[in-house]
């Protein structure tokens, strides 16, 4: 039979025993831990915000109005910029000549 020095050391070390935690500790520690706010990951927070935005019309209404107004302005601005310049003189000439070039 082989002698295991690790087993002896383990046996010796285990002579130091600690008493179990007091009975009220469990409830105390758990309640204190749950008082802290939970941290929600950014992705989940964003998903929730998007869902609320699309399912409740009044949710974040000022932001929705601001976003719509911004879209309108950007759209109008881009439209104005990209539109072909109107050749008023050319149109008038075409009208006078009956559309012949």
């Amino acid at each position, binding site marked *: 039979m082989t002698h295991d020095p690790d087993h002896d050391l383990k046996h*010796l*070390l285990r002579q130091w*025993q600690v*008493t179990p935690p007091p009975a009220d500790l469990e*409830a105390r520690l758990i309640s*204190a831990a749950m008082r802290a706010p*939970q*941290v*929600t990951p950014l992705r989940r927070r964003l998903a929730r915000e998007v869902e609320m935005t699309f399912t409740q019309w009044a949710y974040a209404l000022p932001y929705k109005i601001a976003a719509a107004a911004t879209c309108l302005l950007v759209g109008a601005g881009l439209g104005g910029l990209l539109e072909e310049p109107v050749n008023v003189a050319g149109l008038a000439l075409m009208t006078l000549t009956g559309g012949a070039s």
Partner: protein
Amino acid sequence: MYRDEISVTYAMTGSLSDDELMRRVAGGDTDSMREPAFRLLAARHLRRAHAIAMRIVHNREDAEEVVQEALTRVWRYAARFDPARSAFGTWFYRILANAALDRLRRRPPPAGNMDDYSESLPDEAATGEDAWQKAQEARRIQAALSVLPPRQKMAVVLCYYEDFTQVEAARIMKLNPKALESLLFRAKKSLRQSLKPQS
């Protein structure tokens, strides 16, 4: 009342695994089982966590603070737990080990601190000479452990007191198994030296 609450919780969630309970804890405000799941999960691990903390910091108040810190982090960052990366036990005891080692670095126990000497008594029924000898032995072991470097002490506590396998302990301490083996080797050498039978 608290025990009743635990009983009800157990009836609802008792058969769930740690990972499943953590999924409920991380469920957010909408999950009504969030708090009962956390209570059950914490109750499952509290005793072991407390024993580990006690053996590392050698002081009841500090041990309670360490466990408190670990539980609070589990609650706060429950959503960060990824069962695909590690088991709940590994994750939780890693948080606990880090909190305990951190506490030890910030506030090392004073040499010869025997605040918890009374808690070292291994057998309340034992009396007289026998009890005195057992208490002395426990005190000697506590003193020998207290002078080990923190990570060696953690390795000994996890493997020799809490029966984690070396692979589990290595994962908890974020080491490779060889490094843990080396820590244990050095710890055992020191312990054998300091616990040599007194002539």
